[in-house]
């Protein structure tokens, strides 16, 4: 039996596949590809597939990771080729190989968040103003369902902000995995609220969120 880590992109239309649905989608793709997958033993046998870090519905990602086990060895480039020939659009395997790190080691994720100007006045100026505040408070829902105040400012200190005519792009590294996880959605809704407050509207600010990398505690990319 051989453990294989498959790294793949989840982009475009595939961002609407929820984590639970992705599990099923991948299991079926592996079957269609005729990859000799290991099944769990026992009463209810099911294909062994685990994902390193679940991705929220609506996010794109260039760095997803899933582990499977093979009952027969096969060349990794062939595995990649076969899977890519049966995956739906938006899911694309980049590489496959021996797992190096444990998924538990993931501590941070790098995101690229692009805000589209969907009609807010002074859109860019206001986002700049928001990001330059001393502290950026946001309400986070804990696992228990309570609301907790978190300050996003420390995480945003190292954020890179790019502004062009049509959009504002923020590149930011946020804690990921464990109870300190900060979802980029928190930042987006905080900015959305701020913009609405400024312009006295109740509009939805659309943003495109891409997870670009998974990192361990030392900032080394997940392998």
């Amino acid at each position, binding site marked *: 039996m051989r453990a294989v880590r498959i790294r793949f992109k989840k982009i475009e*239309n*595939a961002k*609407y*596949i*929820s984590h*639970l*649905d992705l599990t*099923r*989608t991948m*299991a*079926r*793709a*592996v*079957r*269609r590809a005729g990859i000799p997958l290991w*099944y769990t033993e026992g009463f209810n*046998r099911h*294909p062994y597939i685990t994902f390193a870090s679940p991705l929220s*519905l*609506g996010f794109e990602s260039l760095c997803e990771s899933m582990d499977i086990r093979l009952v027969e060895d096969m060349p990794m480039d062939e595995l990649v080729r076969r899977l890519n020939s*049966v*995956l*739906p*659009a*938006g899911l694309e395997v980049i590489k496959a190989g021996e797992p190096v790190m444990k998924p538990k080691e993931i501590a941070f994720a790098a995101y690229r968040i692009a805000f589209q100007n*969907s*009609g807010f006045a002074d859109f860019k100026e206001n986002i700049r103003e928001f990001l330059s505040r001393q502290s950026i408070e946001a309400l986070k829902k804990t696992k228990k369902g309570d609301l907790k105040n978190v300050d996003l400012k420390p995480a945003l200190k190292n954020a890179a902000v790019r502004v062009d005519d049509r959009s504002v792009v923020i590149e930011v590294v946020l804690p990921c995995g464990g109870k300190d996880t900060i979802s980029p959605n928190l930042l987006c809704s905080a900015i959305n609220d701020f913009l609405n407050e400024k312009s006295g509207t109740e*509009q*939805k600010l*659309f943003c495109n969120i891409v997870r670009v990398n998974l990192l361990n505690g030392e900032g080394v990319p997940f392998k």
Partner: protein
Amino acid sequence: MSYRLEDLFRLVQKPGRYTGGEVNSVVKDKGKVNIRFAFCFPDLYEVGMSHLGMKILYGLYNREPDIWCERVFMPDTDMERLMRENGIKLFGIESREPIDRFDIIGFTLQYELSYTAVLNMLDLAGLPLYSRERDSSYPLVIAGGPCVSNPEPIADFFDLFVLGEGEDASLELFELYRKHKAGGYDKEEFLRDAARIEGVYVPSFYNVSYKDDGTIASITPKNGAPAKVRKRIVEDLDSAYYPDRFVVPFIDIVHDRAMSEVFRGCIRGCRFCQAGFIYRPVREKSPGVIDAQSRALCENTGYEEFSLSSLSTSDYSRIEELLEKLLGWAEERQTNISLPSLRVDGFSEELAARLNILRRSGLTFAPEAGTQRLRDAINKNLSEDEILKTAQKAFSAGWTSVKLYFMIGLPTETLEDVGGIADLSQKIVDCFYKNPDRPKGKGVNVSVSVACFVPKPFTPFQWEPQDTMTELEEKQRHLRDLIKTRKITLRCHDPATSSLEGVLARGDRRLCAILEEVFRRGGRRDAWSEHFSLQTWLDAMKDLGVDPGFYANRRRGYDEILPWDHLDYGVTKKYLIRENQLAHQSRTTPNCRISCSGCGAAVWGKGVCTE
């Protein structure tokens, strides 16, 4: 500022219902196709995507290089609200383009209560509801499916219906459409030619007149349309088209598995069951063909489970031979075979064990009626002895729960028959405790589900009065009072939905106005219990002067012209009358394999009729 369709995907629950892009979905170059077809299922994605007929026709139509068939489902309330607020019209999932620019819009009518959803979908597409309000510039709007056996309550909204199995008739329809489109499409001329295709019913070509008592005086064809429109069947299932791939959804749907069709029709002839009559004659597929089709489907979808689909799979004449073949590869490939509505007692113990029959599907019976007398009257050939013997076997094998399906409101039913439901359930409980091999330390649960009978066209009960809501409620109360133990769980269907189903199932064209009115008053999703409002219907009928009892609760005479009398499903009126009379004498009719009872389906000279 309004949102684009793509923006809405971020705002709704389960965007996977609307985004498309699933494996095996068909995307064509719209510049290179001639006919754009919108296959509309008037229910949610999860329901529509579970429907086998849609999968067959989707594959069949898209096999034609110049046809692009797309899927369209009823959006959920959140999506509908956003679509209406942002001026986004109903769209095909594959292209995300509004369907009002398509050539043909085809609905499948599976259930009477979905009619308001049909109107809502036409409205969401931006089309006028009535056929007469749509000229040649609009798409042709057509329908098929079991409810087309009496499409009169929804007839004014459609340009034409296809009766029976749609495979051959729709391809002929497309061929005709190609010709007309090439020569400049004119709707009226097209319909005149279409009415000459066997199985095609153009409702506007029939004048219906009424007597003073409200019953039909005559149904008169015009424009050369046939006096009787006969349904179509696929004559040979082995050579008929069957898809080798299904669209594999991202989201969880109701039946998320591959499905292999093993036969069409049913030999049984249970008198309440419309499917048992309108799909005659029984035609089987060969085991080799089913085996090859199942295997291709599993390979092309990656599904880990497939089911053998039919109205009564244990009646398949070569079931053991088929299962041996299927298990040959399914076990090794970690693929489960699911066998819906299967008689447990028909198998060798070895085969039952390999199929895991008991573990997976549990134990389900559909006695439908509580006494042998009433089971004979409805021609349900299942004896108490058979049920108890099988239950006994299952309890010995470690089972502790049994599901039973019944109906109340059946013709000739008395309170004694209703009480029989409680008696039979109690006997199964007793059977558990009398069994020395029963699982130790566990109790038994008998779950009893009771539906309300709705008389349907083309059944021997098409003349029968349906019980009123009050009568049904009374019978439910009676039954509830008779069940004394908590080992029996009783679930009764809502009589309100059944009552409305009863009106629509045997209604005539005068109900089209009611449908429109209910839609105008907000009726959109009556097939979903949380959106169903009987009061809206009753108010609309009252305001428009229509008596629901006229359609549902009145005994009709054998000589009355029924709203569907100009449609021909093979089974003759003479046969249905005979069956109706036998029911009133509580006498059974043998199934098609034991002896032919001359229903009329032999006109096709196919399937079981030639065995």
